[in-house]
């Protein structure tokens, strides 16, 4: 009895015991649900497995960045829907950041009216459910727009109606891939040279000679021009044109995309504005006074003192906002934007009936996106921390 007690009181044994219990509980739980699910599926004759990914879908979706039609497979549908999710998230993140920073800064300004409007904006948007805002924007955007035949047109190039904003879009011909890789490589080279010259300036205290630049930029330009010629790039503008019911040709921004994008970026912008505000407020006043004392202009104080300092405080919550925005893009399901939740966890799930497989795929995708954004922002954050001296 005594020995048993002493064993129980031994911390190492106890900790192993706890872990064994946790592990067995987890294993049992999964065994329980997997067993139930498989017996349910088998006994009721419900199809299972991932074979459906290779079968054709038989239906269309509203818009897609890659080629997709009703003879494509479910796997391709998955990719197309995923790209739509990423597209709306990416663009909304950019605009939410712009809105957030401007509103946050205006809110802290000494302008009596503007700062109050900014405060009202933040407090209104943050306290109303996003789903309601998405509905509002969708129907508010849709209602006043005219039908395609009565489109509002700008110079006969851009048309606005309740099917969306129709824009001319360039169609490139020739060796497009080659051309773009040259553009990207040149941009990277220029960035690299810029960094090098900055390093030089910091260590030597003077700028590089102009000739140093000439020797690099002119050959680069020459090579790029030569490749451009060789690639034989032709630009053919595809113009939107009213044929029958709708505009054909050109690109289109659909009302669904627009409503989701506006709702996501204004809502998240309000949160980012608060992060920016608290970031700026966390800065030591002495820094700003010092900057003013050495004669920096207000704009330069913002640019060189406040923003870089505040960024360190802002970035961690900013990451969170980006993650939240990406997850919130799933509200597309409410307004017909073909994202992964509407198309894959919606249509595909209903057509195939394979709820378990499809929902697992969708959840894993979001998990993966979250982890990637977290990773990227961690790297960026480290960069900001490193230059701290």
């Amino acid at each position: 009895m005594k020995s048993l007690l002493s064993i129980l009181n031994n911390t190492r044994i106890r900790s192993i015991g706890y872990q064994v219990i946790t592990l067995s509980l987890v294993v049992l739980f999964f065994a329980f649900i997997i067993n139930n699910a498989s017996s349910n599926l088998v006994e009721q004759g419900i199809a299972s497995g991932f074979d459906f990914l290779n079968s054709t879908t038989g239906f269309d979706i509203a818009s897609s960045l890659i080629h997709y039609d009703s003879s494509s497979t479910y796997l391709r549908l998955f990719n197309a829907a995923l790209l739509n999710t990423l597209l709306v998230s990416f663009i909304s993140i950019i605009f939410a950041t712009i809105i957030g920073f401007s509103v946050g800064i205006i809110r802290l300004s000494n302008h009596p009216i503007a700062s109050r409007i900014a405060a009202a904006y933040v407090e209104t948007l943050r306290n109303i459910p996003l789903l309601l805002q998405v509905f509002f924007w969708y129907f508010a955007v849709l209602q006043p727009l005219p039908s395609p035949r009565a489109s509002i047109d700008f110079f006969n190039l851009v048309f606005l109606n309740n099917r969306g904003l129709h824009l001319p879009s360039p169609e490139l011909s020739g060796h497009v891939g080659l051309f773009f890789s040259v553009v990207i490589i040149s941009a990277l080279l220029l960035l690299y040279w810029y960094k090098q010259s900055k390093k030089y300036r910091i260590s030597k205290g003077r700028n590089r000679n102009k000739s140093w630049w000439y020797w690099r930029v002119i050959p680069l330009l020459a090579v790029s021009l030569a490749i451009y010629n060789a690639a034989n790039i032709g630009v053919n503008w595809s113009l939107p044109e009213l044929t029958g019911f709708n505009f054909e040709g050109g690109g289109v921004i659909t009302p669904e995309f627009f409503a989701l994008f506006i709702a996501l970026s204004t809502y998240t912008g309000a949160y980012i504005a608060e992060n920016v505000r608290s970031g700026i407020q966390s800065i030591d006043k002495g820094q700003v006074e010092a900057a003013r004392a050495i004669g920096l202009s207000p704009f330069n104080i913002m640019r060189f003192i406040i923003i870089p300092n505040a960024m360190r405080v802002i970035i961690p919550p900013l990451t969170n906002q980006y993650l939240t925005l990406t997850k919130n893009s799933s509200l597309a399901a409410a307004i017909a934007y073909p994202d992964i939740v509407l198309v894959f966890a919606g249509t595909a799930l209903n057509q195939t009936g394979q709820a378990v497989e499809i929902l697992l795929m969708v959840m894993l995708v979001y998990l993966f996106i979250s982890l990637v954004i977290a990773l990227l922002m961690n790297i960026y954050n480290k960069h900001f921390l490193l230059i701290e001296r």
Partner: protein
Amino acid sequence: MRTITASFLFSASLLLMPTAFASTLDTVKDRGSVKCGVTNGLTGFSNPDKQGNWEGMDVDVCRAIAAAVLGDASKVTYVPTSSKTRFTALQTGEIDILSRVTTWTLSRDSKLGLNFAGVNLYDGQGFMVRKDLGIKSAKELNGASICMNTGTSTETNIADFFSANNLNYKTVLFEKSSEVASAYDLGRCDVYTSDKSGLAAQRLKMQKPDDHIILEETISKEPLGPAVRHGDDEWFDVVKWSLMALIEAEELAITQSNIDTFKNTKNPRIARFLGTSGENGKNLKLAPEWSANIIKAVGNYGEIYARNVGEKSQLKIPRGLNKLWSDGGILYAIPLH
């Protein structure tokens, strides 16, 4: 530690023991009510009024079954389901019968673990457009934007129809029919496609119903019917034959109002129907007057049709295929004996 682990394994094995499904018929009799999966609200099929009383074609099917099994058509528990949750609700026993404008297809019958017990409405997919577009035929719809519900057979039908006719189109898909209707009404789409009966119901909800027409063409077969769980034949039979009883009654010209006048009938078919002779009730494990109860509660097929979607309703959908075989339709009751 060992005892702990052992007791865990023991309790786990208890949890994991497969519990057999009790037969649905017995469950329903014990519970005293039929759990019926319906829509969230579709005029003519299953629609709650402001007091929460359900009415419609699909609702009457459930009421008929409650009358047959329990002798009381009001003993139905309505469970609103969405197009996404409907099959799961049936598979997992949340509902006993799915009566929710659901199209009978091979893949649903085989892959989803359910059985369709018959057809209560032969419908087909159609198109609704604005009158001022001046369109007469679906073949003129090249390049149109089309609003529809996601998760239904309409999506695949549309893709088939447009590619077969070499036409272009753009889809706008919504989860809920109320959103499809408002988006179409606001002009987001040129065309609203759905089952024709559903279109007739949605047309009434437009701001100006008269501005919209439903095109003549029908591009698909949509046999709508109630479904039950796969593998419970007893219950499957009850639902199947309750549907047949509705049609049989119309063939025999038995209605809700005249059923009592047949009491002393000499016609053996009617006598079997009323349960005064034969063993129909016993074979189905139901009361002998099961089919008479159905008619007393909801009327025969023709009455149900007229009341909910036909000439006596707002929808006024012509009976078409849903006439009796003897009148040129395809309704045909399998003999009840």
